């Protein structure tokens, strides 16, 4: 859909060769830190910003090839910005029906209000709605014209945590029900992982990796992607074929590493477990920090000085760890990463 | 609202007809007859011009010019589009418009505005017969504009104040220290500079400069003759130099009971006893030369002069045989006409006024 895309503001290049493909009917997510160019990418796709080079296409249609552009209003692409940008002078029903021919507005507005769970609020004005309600209206408005693609630019960022999770789940469900193809832009990896069928991690104007959430989480392309998606333990290893020899013993690899060499493997905090007894393959460590997070405990440990281990390890445990010391074990598949010069020991957000 | 302009008559035919018309008007004025015999005589000669419309830019007293225009139209059938404004602004407007100016006639309050246009070559020569109907000194020496009416500078004093009981004999006295804090002047008015020009001629530039400095030390400056007369009437200042008619207009507005000012004339030979003319000229670029010349001829005809003399503008007519208002002293007893040649374009006076700081 998007290939070799370049775009910029004035002389500053913001997108330097972006490739992104979203299957029909899929919910995609562009994940990246602030300033990586993800909003600009969305605006180029929507037609609000010109591409300098490359190509944006939707199905068979070319939308922008760096020379000629299809105006935004003819792209059939819906857009939900961060603050909703509801039309303050129109009622909720007026907002939803905005893009529709006059005759169909009423009926369709009622239908969409039901879809986003706001029955009966059609006559309100935007300023009479809560933040969450405003976002739902913005979504309904974008869906009303039955766009071929829906773009959501951090639509949940301004909401409080509980509402955010709830609305996110709801929106994902709504979009799936509507059979819509959508791209969500966010800097929140939890949002990305729970929302999307496919995630593109964006970094400095390029897509670093695009994959399904599970694959991306467990088999990231590099340490930075790994760290951006969640906390990661990067453990030095000797890679040999399908196995990695680490301080935790020998672990199976996610993919064949080929001929033997030194490298680093990724172990997510959930792959580490703590025991009181020195079982085989367990590494002794001192607990440096531990706190309760509701659904689990996050425990930070400093392994006893030992070759082949990073300075600190992170594990998520179901219950609190009552001791100062622990034996750490690793399980599951280890994912090999290419070792870069300054591979962080434990990276995370 | 959209003015219509009718195309000019063919030049050759028009010229002869116009001459006839002007002659008719001249005859009318030389006959010295009252307004009753005007229409029938003028009508015969003016028929060719009838239906034309001339545009007159006028810096003169609007009500009077309106009456003149209506009378002219009645006599000749030439319609007058009157554009009243400040004479200086109108002159500036014509300077910007240049040859494309829609104006046919410029009727100014003071000679300098006309002289500036004359210097720029924007005025056409006035028909000799029109020039002849007023004294030669009242018109441009080059003959590009003609005098129409006159007024004299005088001293307006607050009633009962020392300035009223012992009015100055000469405008020169006003620079003396005993007038300190008692005077008002309106140096930015176009009427004031001619007195300065006149003084430069009679006393020389240096003496005039000293006089202006004295005046500056003695007087409060007002933005207009209207404010100055009001200030004198209210006693804010004791007196000031002003054209005679401001007194009469003030009296008409305030009623005699409310008027607390008196007019004193300087001695006839004094530079302050300046008789200044209002004149009119024909724009060279105008499309209705004949009708415009006819309008000038009309202004200096007996009926028009009578209208001016009897109007509430309180100006003196220039044509011999037409009497001014009875309550006004005869013009030749209160001042002497400054010839237009003497007044020039007023640049020298302006320079002095600026040098002395009376003007910015």
């Amino acid at each position: 859909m998007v290939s070799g895309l370049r775009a910029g503001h004035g002389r500053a290049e913001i997108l330097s060769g972006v490739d992104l493909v979203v299957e029909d009917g899929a919910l995609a997510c562009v994940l990246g830190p602030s300033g990586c160019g993800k909003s600009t990418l969305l605006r180029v796709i929507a037609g609000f910003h010109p591409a300098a080079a490359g190509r944006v296409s939707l199905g068979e249609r070319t939308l922008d090839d760096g020379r000629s552009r299809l105006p935004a209003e003819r792209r059939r692409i819906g857009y939900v910005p961060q603050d909703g940008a509801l039309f303050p002078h129109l009622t909720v029903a007026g907002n939803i029906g905005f893009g529709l021919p006059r005759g169909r507005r009423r009926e369709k507005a009622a239908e969409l209000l039901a879809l986003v769970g706001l029955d009966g609020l059609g006559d309100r004005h935007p300023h009479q709605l809560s933040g969450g309600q405003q976002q739902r209206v913005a979504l309904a408005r974008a869906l009303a014209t039955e766009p071929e693609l829906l773009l959501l630019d951090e639509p949940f960022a301004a909401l409080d945590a509980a509402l955010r999770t709830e609305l996110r789940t709801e929106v994902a469900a709504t979009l799936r029900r509507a059979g819509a193809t959508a791209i969500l832009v966010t800097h929140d990896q939890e949002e990305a992982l729970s929302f999307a069928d496919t995630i593109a991690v964006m970094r400095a104007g390029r897509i670093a990796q695009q994959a399904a959430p599970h694959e991306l989480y467990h088999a990231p392309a590099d340490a930075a992607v790994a760290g951006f998606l969640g906390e990661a333990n990067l453990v030095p290893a000797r890679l040999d074929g399908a196995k990695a020899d680490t301080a935790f013993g020998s672990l199976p690899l996610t993919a064949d590493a080929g001929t033997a060499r030194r490298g680093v493997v990724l172990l997510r905090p959930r792959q580490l477990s703590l025991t009181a007894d020195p079982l085989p393959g367990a590494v002794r460590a001192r607990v440096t920090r531990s706190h309760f997070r509701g659904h689990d405990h996050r425990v930070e440990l400093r392994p006893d000085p030992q070759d082949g281990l990073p300075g600190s390890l992170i594990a998520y445990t179901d219950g609190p760890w009552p001791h100062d010391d622990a034996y750490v074990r690793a399980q599951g598949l280890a994912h090999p990463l290419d070792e870069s010069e300054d591979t962080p020991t434990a990276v995370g957000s | 609202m959209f003015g219509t302009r009718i195309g000019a008559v063919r030049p050759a035919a028009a010229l002869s007809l116009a001459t006839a018309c002007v002659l008719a008007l001249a005859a009318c004025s030389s006959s010295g007859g009252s307004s009753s015999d005007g229409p029938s005589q003028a009508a015969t000669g003016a028929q060719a011009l009838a239906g034309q419309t001339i545009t007159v830019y006028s810096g003169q007293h609007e009500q009077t010019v309106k009456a003149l225009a209506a009378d002219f139209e009645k006599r000749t059938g030439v319609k007058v589009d009157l554009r009243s404004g400040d004479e200086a602004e109108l002159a500036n407007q014509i300077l910007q418009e240049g040859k494309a100016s829609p104006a046919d006639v410029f009727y100014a309050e003071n000679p300098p505005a006309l002289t500036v246009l004359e210097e720029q070559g924007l005025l056409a020569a006035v028909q000799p017969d029109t020039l002849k109907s007023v004294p030669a000194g009242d018109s441009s020496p080059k003959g590009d504009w003609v005098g129409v009416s006159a007024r004299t500078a005088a001293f307006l004093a607050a009633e009962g104040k020392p300035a009223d009981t012992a009015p100055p004999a000469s405008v020169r006295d006003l620079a003396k220290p005993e007038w300190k804090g008692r005077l008002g002047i309106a140096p930015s008015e176009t009427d004031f500079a001619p007195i300065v020009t006149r003084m430069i001629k009679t006393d020389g530039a240096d003496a005039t400069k000293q006089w202006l400095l004295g005046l500056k030390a003695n007087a409060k400056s007002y933005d207009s003759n209207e404010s100055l007369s009001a200030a004198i009437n209210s006693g804010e200042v004791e007196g000031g130099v002003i054209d005679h008619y401001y007194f009469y207009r003030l009296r008409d507005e305030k009623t005699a009971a409310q008027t607390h000012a008196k007019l004193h004339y300087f001695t006839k030979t004094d530079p302050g006893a300046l008789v200044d003319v209002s004149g009119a000229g024909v724009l060279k670029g105008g499309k209705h030369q004949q009708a415009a010349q006819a309008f000038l001829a009309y202004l200096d005809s007996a009926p028009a002069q009578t209208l001016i003399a009897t109007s509430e503008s309180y100006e003196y007519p220039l044509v011999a045989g037409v009497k001014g208002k009875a309550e006004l002293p005869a013009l030749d007893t209160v001042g002497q006409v400054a010839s237009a040649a003497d007044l020039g374009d007023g640049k020298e006076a302006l320079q002095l006024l600026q040098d002395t700081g009376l003007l910015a």
Partner: protein
Amino acid sequence: MSTPHSARSADSPSPLPRWRAAGLLAPLAFAIVAVVASPLAFVVVQAGQAGWDQAQRLLGRPLIATLLWNTATLAAAVTAATAVLGFGAAYLVERTDLPGRRWWTVALVLPLAVPEFVRGYSWVSLFSSVRGYWGAVLVMTCSLYPLVFLPVAATLRRADTAAEEVSRSLGRGPLATLWRVTLPLTRPALAGGALLVSLYLLGEYGAFAMLRFTTFATAIFTQYKLGFDAASAAQLTLVLVALALLLVLLEAGCGRRGRVARRGAVGRRAAAAPLGRWKLPALAALAALVGTAVGVPLYALGYWLVVGSSTTLPSASVLSAALTTLGYAATAALVATAAAVPVALYGWRRGTRLARAAERAAYLTRALPGIAVALSVVHFAIRYAEPVYQQPPLLVAGYVILFFPLALTAVRAALAQVPPGVEEVARSLGTPPLGVLLRVTLPLVLPGLGAAAAMVALTAGTELTATLLLRPTGTQTLATQFWVYTSGLAYGAAAPYAALMTAMSVPPVLLLTRRTLGTNSRTEDSR
């Protein structure tokens, strides 16, 4: 947009995409700026004709320094005084429990309804001691403070009071909060109002002449009136343009440092600050302000109506002059507002340096004396638009050029209230640019457009200098009739025209107040 091509181009990019993407807005905006800034070009060209020696002679005069000093000190004092009064009054009506706040709001804006020549004359005729520097400061402050009051009051009304509450919670008293939070909050509005005030003071001549105070504009006027020397006048005018440029840049600096607080999703009004024992002094201060600013001109008008012996009952000529005035003022208001929309929209959509420069150039004309602007219109029209010369469209054009900055200010303020992104969302919903303009942007700025139109109508309806020079021959407005009579000393005859002008100005003032402050449902809800 719905051409027969649309079916084909729905599948491939449109053949004229770049051009269409840029749209007509930029060329339109620049064309409008070129027209309204044409007097600047005129002044520059004329000044060039007089030559460098003449410029040195003119500017080398010792008096010039004095006049510059007069202008600068007057502008500084009046701007400061209007800022204090405008902000103070706005704070009282928007943030305190002052009794009759609604009524005061209207009364405080009413001085705008008094025509400027009535204002100057009324003071001089009633109080002969109101003269010179302090007289000018007094009269100008009284007449111009609403230009600051209105935008500041509007900002205070719209701004979320959270920041002020936080300040109080941090232990700052009401005065410290006023100084350190509320004042900075209104800085863009304050700066914008102050800019209009100071630009106006630079070019003003008539009122100062009446008050016997000479400013730099006096020197320019002398060149026109006694020297018939437009070129020298233009050289002097350039000095004013330079001063104006300085002010515009200064305002741009202030405006940028301050940020208009965006209305939160649930912005609310704070409980009014109790005035306590300050209630009476505050009431007295406002009463004194309104009494001086509105009372003096009204009294003078009444006096002339009753006392002047030339007073006649309003006749047909008054009526026709009133209708003419109304027609021109309304047309000028519509055209100026319509012209301001593309320029403001262009600046708003693209915050580029070029867009901002174009906006600012439009402000500079405000500092030119009216006669310079009018002569410039004469100059260009007779050369390039001869068919409309001295026709109604020319006078309208003159008003539009003169008062464009007023319209632009109001339209900009309205656009600043439009939530960002709504235009893009509308595009993405399949609405072509024109539809977006008609269905989203214009409806949202409509109240602001009303304010812009009212402001222009108000000023155009009482304009004199340009009216005399540009009107169709024979056309009489209330202002020209007033001038005809006052220049013949017939104040009584002139008074009905002035009174009618004032009366006719009241509805636009009310409209302006309502539109600028806004009485939308949200503020009503929260009251």
